[in-house]
């Protein structure tokens, strides 16, 4: 594991440019001088069987054509077309969509974080800074806190193994599908609580089953969107011993699936609990 620091390099280095810019975005003059490149599709050359008429022998095109840029983006045209009919409701919906996109981006799995810190420590950073509690292996206390109060190591340290994650208080209305990818690589994760995370559905449980199914022993799914398909994902979790869910209610298929799961796995204890504690307000 490369020990990369999270701190930025000093300012002095940026003042003296010591390397060339080999970026892909060459200027139009450079692109024209390089000439016609063979077309590549997914890394392999695409066999062109015909050439555009303007590139045949004897045809002439003006050199000024290198200044011809692409036509305006179709998304811009689509937005302009909707302008006369714009209502306040449209703006509100657009803003809500933007908030959702922001939240998903915030919860994305960052490979840079994992390279710098290692999977366990990266998960620790992720969950603790989003107001959930994490417990490490061989320790009794839960790590809860903020960036300011809790000082977590900013480089890779040995010995940090995440054993339990409690996402009941996850900020901004709960963890999402993209956020669950941060549980990837946690080889000692035994205990997971996704209580009150209303965005957890079949796809999320499927992801957990694939990533952590071999070591996870306790799973709390109260307040999540359960359906009959979730049971298939739960059946894939070979190490699961204790499952806590809400009352399935009128959903007959879910009840049938749960009873089949119980029958098949005698060592799995399914506990149906009612949320008696006052609804934990996820702070915005």
């Amino acid at each position: 594991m490369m020990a990369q620091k999270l701190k930025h390099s000093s300012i002095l280095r940026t003042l003296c440019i010591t390397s060339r810019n080999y970026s892909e975005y060459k200027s139009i003059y450079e692109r024209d001088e390089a000439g016609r490149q063979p077309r590549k599709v997914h890394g392999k050359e695409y066999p062109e069987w015909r050439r555009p008429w303007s590139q045949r022998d004897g045809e002439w095109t003006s050199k000024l054509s290198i200044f011809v840029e692409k036509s305006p983006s179709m998304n811009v045209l689509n937005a302009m077309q909707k302008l006369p009919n714009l209502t306040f409701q449209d703006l509100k919906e657009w803003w809500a969509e933007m908030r959702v996109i922001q939240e998903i981006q915030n919860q994305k799995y960052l490979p840079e974080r994992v390279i710098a810190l290692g999977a366990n420590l990266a998960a620790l950073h992720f969950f603790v800074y989003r107001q959930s509690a994490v417990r490490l292996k061989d320790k009794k206390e839960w790590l809860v806190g903020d960036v300011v109060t809790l000082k977590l190591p900013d480089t890779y340290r040995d010995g940090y193994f995440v054993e339990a994650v409690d996402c009941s208080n996850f900020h901004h209305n709960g963890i999402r599908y993209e956020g669950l990818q941060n549980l990837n690589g946690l080889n000692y994760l035994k205990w997971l609580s996704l209580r009150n995370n209303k965005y957890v559905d079949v796809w999320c449980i499927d992801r957990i089953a694939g990533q952590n199914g071999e070591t996870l022993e306790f799973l709390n799914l109260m307040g999540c969107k359960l359906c009959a398909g979730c049971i298939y994902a739960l059946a894939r979790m070979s190490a699961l011993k204790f499952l806590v869910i809400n009352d399935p209610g009128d959903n007959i298929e879910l009840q049938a699936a749960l009873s089949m799961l119980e029958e098949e796995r005698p060592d799995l204890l399914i506990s149906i609990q009612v949320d008696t504690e006052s609804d934990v307000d996820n702070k915005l």
Partner: protein
Amino acid sequence: MNFSRILTKNIKKYIVFSNRNYAKFVNPFTRTWDTINNEIKSGFKQQSDYPEHADVVIIGGGFIGSSVAYWLKNRAGEGLSVAVIEKDTTYEMCQNMHSHGIITQHYSLPENIYLSQYSADFLRNIKQNLKEDVDIEFKPHGTLILASEKYASKLEENVSLQKEFGISSKILTVEEIERLYPWINTSDIKLGCISKESEGAFNSQSLLKGLIKKTQELGATYLKSEVIDFEMNPQQDILMEGVAPGSFKKINRLVYRTEDNQEIFLKFAVCVVAAGSDSESVAKLANIGTGGGLLSVPLPIEKREYNVYSIENEGSKMSFGLNTPFIMDTSGLWLKRDGLQKKLICGQIPLIKQDKNISYSDILYSSLHNRYPECVKSKVKPISTDFIDCNTYDDTGILGPHPYHTNLFFATGFSRQGVQHSPAIGRAVAELIIDCQFTTIDLSRFGFDRILIDEPLIESNVY
């Protein structure tokens, strides 16, 4: 006399033939005045309810056709008028498709990997993309691919390729397969592969219904008709590579026969052929396969049928549990559990080359007995006949414009991947039409050109 006749003819050209006028005002006087006004404006002619012009016509309203219509309307809104021509609105041909509602991430071509990744994303967010009440009932049981000695190394290569694209799949050794799924006979298997997420079964019917409803809500027109012919106009001034100068004929209009046997001309800018197994006959209407030069290569899509059988266990003791993935065998046999019920569904992938001497049921029974030895105790009976549009050239879909008819796009031949990749394919065709290039997933290698230059694109992870 002549002059006035010419004058009226010229005037009639500019009069707009609008469709039926619905009442916009509540006040009866304004309503009457409005209706009479519109009638006068259109010259007291008999309006036909059927459209005579559309910007984009999609032949075939199944999964791919509806998906293309959805994406076109999503991106262009009122800017493009889309008409979908479907000859069987009860979708009898699409119902009971037991084998078609599967998502899998096991592919070896980068295009297919991107397609399945995007389709899984689309299905996961289907409530935002389509309507709130669409429930595709995703059952994430995973898909297990079994490989014999011959294919083991290829499977490993494919898994490492998939890792580069972000798909984590696990290779299972024979011992692990025997431990997890003890009811499978592993004597001739070397390796198995199962993916960790987004693989399983879903309800394809609700996907289709959701797509159609949302597309109609966005403004596309669905017509219950059958395409009879294309009308080609000669255009002597067009020069095209591979075409003798002065002989080019452009398709401008198509003729469709409606329910009440009216034959109506429909003028379009772009036509998308997404007709599944009937695509070849539609292409023949445009002289593809019967003409000369570029038109001499026919569309190699044929219909393949296969039976789907159910294996019912008489006794109550089952050897397979809830953790039963969709198993793809080395012989082309696939097995899956029928929901929560105690029976298995199986079928055999049809051969690309049809051979009358081989009986499909024999092949199926022998491979079934080999893989699931306990099936001798159970009843095997056929429940339905599924069919697919098979590309007999290289078993991969055809997507893109025809080299001669540049306003005729194909989106067919995806065989069993058609349903699961339909959202991504629809988006690709919409990008071709609106942006004139692929912007998200580059599917240029799926074009019709590969049939002309004889470069088959073979997907090696699909048996």
